[in-house]
């Protein structure tokens, strides 16, 4: 600071007295040289940190827009990476301008604390009793006992329907058990050490965690609470009865997330083994399927804590499932009752043929019976567990339900639909006394509930299984069982395999969709399908109904394969596609994180608002640090009256003033005096940019229509920044800052402001080129249109671009030197030739004319070599 002030005073004094500036002593000269080198070093570090911060920001932004699944680790990891680099930038700016921007650190700290609040995991605690009686809970208790058991409590206590007696081991009890065994931190540690997108790692992790939970010690208070509840149930219905132990996780069985089949259930558990069974069901929180499901839906472990329901086992004579409407076709409002002799497990498993009854609502009547040859039934095994028992041919062919029973089931299901206010999926049983019992009820997942949009009408060729990667797609069926068949698979085919073998992963980037007879959500092939966004349904059973080469449409969300193509439905569904991440807890965390990191508010360095007090995001800090660092580097020579590190004016044949500051080795040798010639430059990027600038003569400003001119005049009277574009000294000239491989250009062509910065050295990974451009003289609409046109051209050339109003930024990084230099020629060309283009942006024909001229010229640049001295 003091040095700068003395320098300024000295210079002022020199001007006032008309004497030349005094020569520096060798000692002073050496001191300044060292000081400059130190600052230059910090400047480069600052630029490197800036690049890394922008990269991490881009990763976060990309995650937010693509809708692909990501975990909290991506959000936290990249937010931390940005923060680490921002700290570096602030430190380096402090070296460049000691004491000048102290406020930045304070602003950063405020943002860090806000980020901290957003990113800190919520504590894994839930209040409430460890065990709750079914007789005492209702719908609103789902936050403690899970929706499945809360609904059953509602059915029993508010609707007065028959439900087996039982109780819930609450989510609080699950966490209490984890804590008692020090497993909360241990599980976090294990999860964090695993690359969860690799299926082998996922399965190993899942197995480790599940074993830890299954072997955990149940705390004494929970043990005695379960004992008491169990005694109550046995007191009510007598000894000798087993329990059905079922998952009732928080967030399970809601309209948004079903978790169907992801958790374990155990039937007919001996009362003495309830606690072991509780641990095993609780452990299934970490089944591979459940972990993948959470990841796909943006849920954290903390959003799906496990409560476990324990209900007296019903010795069912007949059992099954009722849907109150057709889940594939909502307009079909007939109740669909599936039934089997014995336990409802026969129906729930989905592996066996069972009876289906269709029941009209008004009047309540059975309108269709599809009686299956059931073959086997599940029955209670004496003591514990269930058995599969063969039915006699006569039993097998007999309808499982009478019409009266069917109507009783349908009526109960409709009562539940009326009470819960939507189509229901009801598991039921009829015991040997003929009493109907409700075992489970949950919202029926239909096309609309799943947010899928229009469905394909008509019977599917194949349906069922599990959707492992959502979406809809069509193509010819390619049945692949061998490598030979794999080679013959046409591009865009619907790949149909027996087993989702990882070796088929290589085919996925050519497949429209994937079907497998076996397999589930957590396998390797499923992971790859999701990663590539290829719709996939696994566990479909026989795919023999699909003819080779037959055109089919795979509706993965609906787990169905339909004949033919349905382009209008595909398009509608894609347009209305619900992004699973957006509303999810992790999606929300990402949005809140981005709000603190990504928006850029400090856009105009010449505006009075461009100061630390107005920093609102980490991006603002990076922008501010970058801008100030550039200014400080330019100011050094001037403030210290040190010509070696002051900018020199460029001798050239291009209009406008150009000034060049040599940072290190940007000049070919010692350049004395106030001027530098192009031939004296060693900065490769600058030479490439210059080459692009002069390669094609400029036609002059585009011809203006009256309206265009009026707009400029109006804008100039309204926008003070435009009315006085040359007021500030910094804005008057075009400044290059150069070393051999580095170049920074700040240019102001009238109303057009642009910055080009590049590093094009031997290390590809460090190379980058960033180009930003803002302003213009026309109204904002046309300035923005110009920004978009340039963004489009650069986007086609492989830049990643972003446009906010009339500001366009484009960046390429990690590219070979020659590629960066080629891009620089293009940017140089665009700098010269897009000036004032905003004027004509209201006329579509002019836009097309210029677009094609720009693209043709750019094409012709590619072959050029750097220009010689003009």
């Amino acid at each position, binding site marked *: 600071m003091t040095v700068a002030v003395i320098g300024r005073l000295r210079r002022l004094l020199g001007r006032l007295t008309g004497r030349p500036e005094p020569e520096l002593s060798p000692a002073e000269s050496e001191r300044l040289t060292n000081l400059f080198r130190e600052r230059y070093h910090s400047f480069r570090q600052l630029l490197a940190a800036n690049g890394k911060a922008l990269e991490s920001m881009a990763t976060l932004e990309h995650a937010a827009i693509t809708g692909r699944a990501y975990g909290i*680790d991506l959000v936290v990891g990249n*937010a931390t990476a940005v923060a680490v680099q921002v700290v570096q930038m602030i430190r380096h700016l402090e070296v460049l301008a000691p004491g000048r921007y102290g406020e930045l650190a304070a602003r950063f700290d405020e943002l860090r*604390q806000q980020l901290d609040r957003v990113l800190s995991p919520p504590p894994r605690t839930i209040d409430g009793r460890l065990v709750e009686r079914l007789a005492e809970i209702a719908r609103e208790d789902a936050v403690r006992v899970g929706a499945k058991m809360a609904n059953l409590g509602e059915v029993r206590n508010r609707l007065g329907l028959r439900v087996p007696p039982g109780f819930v081991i609450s989510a609080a009890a699950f966490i209490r058990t984890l804590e008692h065994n020090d497993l909360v931190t241990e599980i976090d540690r294990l999860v964090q050490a*695993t*690359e*969860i997108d690799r299926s082998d790692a996922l399965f190993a992790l899942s197995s480790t965690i599940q074993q830890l939970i299954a072997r955990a010690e149940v705390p004494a208070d929970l043990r005695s609470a379960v004992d008491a509840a169990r005694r109550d149930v046995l007191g009510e219905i007598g000894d000798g009865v087993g329990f059905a132990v079922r998952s009732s996780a928080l967030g399970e069985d809601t309209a948004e997330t079903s978790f169907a089949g992801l958790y374990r259930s155990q039937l007919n558990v001996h009362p003495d083994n309830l606690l072991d069974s509780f641990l095993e069901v609780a452990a299934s929180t970490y089944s591979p399927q459940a972990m993948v499901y959470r990841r796909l839906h943006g849920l954290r472990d903390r959003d799906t804590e496990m409560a476990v329901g324990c209900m007296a086992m019903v010795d069912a004579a007949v059992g099954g499932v009722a849907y109150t409407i057709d889940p594939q076709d909502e307009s079909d409002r007939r109740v669909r009752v599936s039934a089997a002799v014995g336990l409802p497990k026969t129906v729930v498993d989905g592996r066996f043929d069972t009876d289906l009854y269709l029941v009209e609502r008004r009047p309540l009547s059975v309108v269709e019976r599809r009686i299956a040859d059931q073959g086997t039934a599940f029955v209670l095994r004496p003591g514990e567990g269930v058995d599969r028992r063969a039915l006699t041919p006569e039993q097998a062919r007999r309808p499982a339900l009478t019409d009266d029973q069917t109507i009783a089931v349908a009526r109960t299901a409709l009562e539940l639909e009326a009470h819960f206010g939507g189509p229901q999926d009801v598991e039921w049983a009829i015991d040997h006394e003929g009493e109907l019992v409700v075992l489970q009820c949950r919202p029926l997942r239909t096309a609309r509930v799943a947010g899928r949009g229009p469905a394909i009408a008509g019977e599917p060729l194949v349906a069922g299984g599990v959707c492992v990667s959502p979406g809809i797609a069509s193509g010819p069926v390619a049945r692949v069982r061998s490598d030979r068949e794999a080679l013959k698979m046409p591009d865009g085919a619907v790949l149909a395999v027996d087993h989702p073998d990882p070796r088929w992963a290589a085919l996925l980037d050519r497949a429209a969709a994937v079907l497998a007879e076996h397999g589930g959500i957590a396998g390797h092939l499923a992971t790859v399908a999701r990663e590539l966004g290829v719709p996939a349904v696994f566990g479909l059973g026989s795919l023999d109904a699909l003819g080779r080469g037959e055109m089919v449409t795979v509706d993965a969300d609906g787990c169905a394969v339909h004949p033919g193509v349905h382009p209008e439905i595909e398009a509608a569904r894609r347009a209305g596609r619900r992004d699973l991440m957006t509303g999810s807890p992790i999606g929300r965390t990402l949005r809140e994180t981005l709000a603190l990191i990504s928006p850029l508010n400090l856009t105009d360095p010449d505006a009075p608002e461009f100061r630390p007090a107005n920093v609102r995001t980490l991006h603002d800090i990076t922008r501010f640090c970058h801008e100030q660092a550039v200014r400080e580097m330019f100011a050094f020579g001037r403030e210290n009256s040190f010509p070696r590190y002051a900018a020199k004016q460029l001798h050239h044949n291009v209009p406008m003033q150009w000034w060049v500051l040599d940072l290190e080795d940007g000049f070919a040798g010692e350049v004395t005096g106030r001027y530098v010639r192009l031939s004296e430059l060693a900065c490769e990027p600058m030479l490439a940019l210059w080459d692009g600038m002069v390669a094609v003569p400029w036609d002059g400003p585009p011809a203006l229509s009256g309206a265009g001119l009026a707009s400029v005049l109006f804008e100039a009277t309204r926008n003070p920044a435009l009315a006085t574009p040359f007021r500030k000294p910094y804005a008057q000239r075009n400044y290059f800052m150069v070393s051999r491989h580095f170049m920074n250009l700040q240019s102001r062509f009238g109303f057009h402001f642009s910055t080009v910065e590049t590093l094009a050295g031997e290390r590809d990974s460090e190379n980058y080129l960033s180009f930003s451009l803002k302003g213009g003289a026309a109204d904002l609409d046309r300035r923005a249109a110009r920004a978009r046109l340039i963004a489009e051209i650069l986007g086609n050339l492989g830049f990643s671009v972003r446009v906010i109003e009339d500001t366009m930024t484009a960046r390429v990084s990690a590219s070979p030197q020659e590629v960066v230099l080629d891009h620089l020629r293009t940017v140089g060309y665009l700098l010269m030739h897009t000036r004032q283009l905003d004027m004509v942006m209201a006329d579509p024909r002019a836009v097309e004319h210029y677009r094609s001229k720009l693209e043709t010229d750019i094409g012709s640049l590619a072959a050029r070599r750097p220009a010689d001295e003009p």
Partner: protein
Amino acid sequence: MATRLLVVDDEEDFLRSIVMRIELRGLAVHGVASGSAALDYLRGNPDTVDVVLLDIRMPGMDGLETLRQIKACCPSVEVIVVTGHGSQEFSRIGRELGAFDYLIKPIRLDVILERIEAATRAGRKRRAD
């Protein structure tokens, strides 16, 4: 002069393998399995280390505490923090941001080497000045 690197990671298998792989690329490297061992090494061998590659998740003295102490005892040593796949530790890392760089596992070896090289250049420059 070859980069002098200290790798701190409690997973012995990972440590052994990364030390070996980095040595093969011509860097002078020493591995330790804990934060306290890292500090002992730095104090016992002053000015012999350019860069520390530090895993943030370790039992005992964890990575962040180690980072804080390294920065206190040897400010010119650059530290590259490495974190696991599911790091959820912003709140803690947030308060200790003295790291030169921050890498998220899994990391390709050439990326590690590039970052080490950049940190070495930065650290040596800083000391030279």
